[in-house]
């Protein structure tokens, strides 16, 4: 009887110990339930969410579970394939309606302008790093190459298209995409920079021209929260500094408004919530990259989606000014102040995972 009581006590402690630890570590403070939540029937759900968020040893437990699931054969979660060498997001079939609207918006834009327009649609890691995807799953992958070709064919009359797919695919074994983030690494952007040179009319510099630093080695990107798999190595954030001719490259955030000048590659941004802000600064709507002591006098206007921010500081060495407009965050007022005719070239640089699924391009350009 005594041993049964001890056994019962130990079993009960399985529930009580985490509860006591939660109280001791102050994790209960976030467990507030509003009257509105209570009435709407969301009280339990909001409690569960905040409790899960603050759960003691959450990362450890997730990592152990993910390892066990992997041992049992699972390597896909939330549409992401995962393993030690990275998390790759599988894209569903693109939305044809959204694609058509975005393409039409670009076409309409190009027809209104006299400046030459360029279009770069870059694939995601799932298309380039297919060697990391289980063989049986390859058939169900969205064919991004075909999608890019289809979009390029639609815009061929009004745009110069840039082949980002082959630029990346020919270096597929290199560190082109972050292991824990859907965006391109600085190295991936470097190959896009090289691939875009012919079309944009500059002679891309070899890697020897850059001094490459790696100031951050433990970056966990946006895919890590979808698959908190502890065995995926964190990422390294690299910076390509142009080291010839003593050119000074400056960033001006919100040049049409407050015009705050900051350093290119401000190291303090590596400590922020999104360390990849280091490439173009924290205020993402409109950013100017200005170059002093340069023999070039070109002005490039870029509309982008934030998928390849490291690309534009690389291109900057061939221009006097690059104005980067992030269509996700730019305001209507800022857009109305931008005159494309004041630039020599206009580049649209997007990623397939946004172009085929998000209407923001059509929305923003339509308002302009």
């Amino acid at each position: 009887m005594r041993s049964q009581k001890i056994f019962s006590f130990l079993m009960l402690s399985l529930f009580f110990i985490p509860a006591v630890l939660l109280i001791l570590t102050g994790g209960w403070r976030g467990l507030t339930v509003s009257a509105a939540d209570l009435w709407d029937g969301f009280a339990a759900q909001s409690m569960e969410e905040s409790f899960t968020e603050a759960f003691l040893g959450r990362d450890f437990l997730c990592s152990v579970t993910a390892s066990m699931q992997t041992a049992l054969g699972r390597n896909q979660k939330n549409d992401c394939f995962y393993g030690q060498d990275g998390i790759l997001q599988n894209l569903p079939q693109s939305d044809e309606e959204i694609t058509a609207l975005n393409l039409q918006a670009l076409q309409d834009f190009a027809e209104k302008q006299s400046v030459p327009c360029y279009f770069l649609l870059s694939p995601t890691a799932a298309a380039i790093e297919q060697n990391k995807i289980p063989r049986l799953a390859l058939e169900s992958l969205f064919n991004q190459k075909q999608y890019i070709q289809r979009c390029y064919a639609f815009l061929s009359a009004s745009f110069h298209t840039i082949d980002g797919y082959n630029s990346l695919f020919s270096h597929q074994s290199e560190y082109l995409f972050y292991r824990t983030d859907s965006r391109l690494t600085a190295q991936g952007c470097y190959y896009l920079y090289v691939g875009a040179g012919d079309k944009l009319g500059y002679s891309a510099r070899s890697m020897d021209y850059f001094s490459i630093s790696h100031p951050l080695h433990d970056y966990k990107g946006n895919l890590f929260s979808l698959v908190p798999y502890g065995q995926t190595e964190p990422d390294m954030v690299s910076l390509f500094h142009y080291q010839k001719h003593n050119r000074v490259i400056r960033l001006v955030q919100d040049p049409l408004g407050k015009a705050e000048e900051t350093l290119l590659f401000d190291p303090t941004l590596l400590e922020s919530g999104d360390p990849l802000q280091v490439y173009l600064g924290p205020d993402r709507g409109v950013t100017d990259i200005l170059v002093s002591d340069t023999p070039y006098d070109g002005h490039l206007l870029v509309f982008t989606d934030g998928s390849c921010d490291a690309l534009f500081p690389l291109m900057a060495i061939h221009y006097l000014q690059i104005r980067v407009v992030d269509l996700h965050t730019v305001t209507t007022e800022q857009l109305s102040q931008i005159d494309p005719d004041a630039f020599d070239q206009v580049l649209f640089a997007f990623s397939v995972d946004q172009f085929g699924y998000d209407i923001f391009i059509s929305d923003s350009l339509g308002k302009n």
Partner: protein
Amino acid sequence: MQLASLSFLYLFLPASLAVYYLFPRRMRYGVLLAVSLAFFLLNDPVSLLFLSVSVTADYALGLLMERFEQQNRRRRAIMLVMVGKNLLLFFGISCYCQLHGMATPLGLSICTLLGTGYAVDIYNGEALYEHNWGKFLLAHTLFMKLPAGPLVRYRTLREQFLPKKADFARMSEPIALFIQGVAKQAILGSPIRQLYDTLSSFSRADHSVFSLWLMPLCAAMNLYFILSGYCDMARGLGGMFGISLPRNFYYPYQSRSITDFVGRFNISVTDYLKTYIYHPLGEDSGGFASSALNIGVVTLLWGIWFGFRINYLLWGAFFVLLILLERSVWGKILIKLPVFFLRIYTFALVLLSFVIFNGRSVGQSLFFFQGMLGLGGLPMATSPILYLLSQYAPYLVLAVLFSTSLPHSLKGALRKKSPAAASAVGMVFYGGLLFLSTGFLLHP
């Protein structure tokens, strides 16, 4: 708040147990009522208000019936009002919610059917009139059985609301049962549900013969692990609070006939239907036609317990047909066959029944049947299906294994040989199971 959720496991449950056992015995049913109402309030406050009114009406009508003890016509009228009101609420709200794609209010079926049973029982003199509103409300809103039963008769519950001494020596078994229920849902039910959902989302062109065979297996395992998981949790929680609840599933997939299967699957619903419909209809005492009709009515209701859809009705009808065939055609042959064969025979028919259960329409089920027989021009298997299987095969194997009584037999054998070792192994096993379940709840 789900029973298998982190906030329930590590916050609501320890807090409720602590408060429950800190209070004196005579006040514990009051604490349990407060805990149940808090659970209801956190999950579905509108239903709580609404069902409290309905339960109070049943309570008042019960007292009114007692007042007319000598006037049978009035008593019958009151009983019919109670039954009619509860059935109208149950069918009306369930249908409305299904038509509008809304979730059924928490505890609707449990509360209304318990109320119906109470009305019939007091009318027949099989239960005492309830004079304590708090205990009456507690029987209806007892939190552990709100999400998915088991469905218990009122008098069975009422007998247990008496002051009792806490028996810590017996606490380990309900805790183990509760952990087992959580693990059933989190570790096996949830991944199999994911596989089933993925297969269900396939268009006709994406399917293959293999995927169509895989679907009913997933549906059968998913339904069993989710529902029996709920029931294990309810029974375990009941035990922790000193209330004994019946089991709802008894290894249904190792049944030896379809009649046996119906008696092992969703047992509390089967018992309820037998008590309140099959027995009053005269069971099988009135010849073949009458008995077939009685079985038909009960089994069809057993089918539509899962929802008001033509496929669920057909699912029930499929079982009616098989039960009648077993009774009148091949039942005598079956009892002479080896047990292994009987289990294969039953499981195969149950899997086929899930083809009807899975379909969103009769046409879709027909397509599934045709495809399974290789008649739809579908390929045998495709890479995406094989990939999906590679992801979930171990879970399916474990699910099939744990749906049998084999683990329970092993536990029993160990306990018989060495009770002390069984306790130690049990502690490590259930501790590990809770740890893993917590991990799966965080990272499904």
